[in-house]
């Protein structure tokens, strides 16, 4: 590979990845074919300007990258998916209920004078933050 071909290959790296993935190989093969007719400098200048234009286009409106792991959501709900979601919701609900009834053994002091205390009927608990909530000592 000649020096100008190597330089051309490096310049191709300036393109946004989606563009490079789609057209990079073709552009690289075309360099050798066009060099005789158009000259290396002209081709390099052309590619530099083109890369700048594509980067501007990409910054203004980025194209979605190819995502081979993306799976299309089918138009009708899958029964297995519905059952799995239902079981997940039930598990989350049971977990929340179990944590609400459990007793917290330890408590520790805090800079604000609030302490996380065991379930104690004399202390008002703020249940907004779930079990083991921060509570103000009375």
């Amino acid at each position, binding site marked *: 590979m000649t020096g100008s071909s190597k330089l051309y290959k490096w310049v191709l790296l300036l393109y946004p990845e989606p*563009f490079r993935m789609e*057209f990079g190989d*073709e552009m690289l093969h075309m360099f050798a074919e*066009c060099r005789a*007719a158009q000259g290396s400098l002209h081709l390099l200048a052309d590619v530099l*300007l*083109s890369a700048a234009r*594509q980067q501007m286009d990409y910054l203004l409106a980025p194209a979605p990258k190819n995502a081979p792991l993306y799976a299309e959501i089918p138009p009708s709900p899958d029964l297995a998916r519905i059952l799995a979601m239902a079981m997940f919701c039930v598990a989350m609900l049971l977990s929340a209920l179990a944590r609400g009834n459990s007793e917290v053994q330890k408590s520790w002091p805090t800079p604000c004078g609030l302490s996380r205390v065991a379930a104690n009927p004399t202390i008002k608990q703020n249940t907004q933050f779930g079990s083991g909530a921060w509570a103000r000592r009375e």
Partner: protein
Amino acid sequence: MEAKSNLSQPLSPAALEILAALATEDLHGYGIIQTVSAQSNGKVRIGPGSLYDNLKRLMERGWVRDLKPTSENEKRLYCLTAEGKSVLSCEIDRLDNLIRRTKRSLRGMEAKRAE
């Protein structure tokens, strides 16, 4: 009969040359460059960067599509879509009208000078 115009702006010179090249036959990238040079008698030279800039834009607009190669050694071909043919036809009609009007105006100017 004029094709229905779906162009908001005239085509750029490079886009026009590329669409005109693809109007003859399906071509790969280097084939487009060679055809553009031939149809302009060597006056217009498109580099790979400009070519693929324009091809990307034309493909996004749905005027050109690519034909995936069936084997590894084959090059990817590009072809005009039906919409691309319609757009090219509109642009050719516009240029044709412009040329006829301009020729008429120039003949009128020459006639006035002769008087």
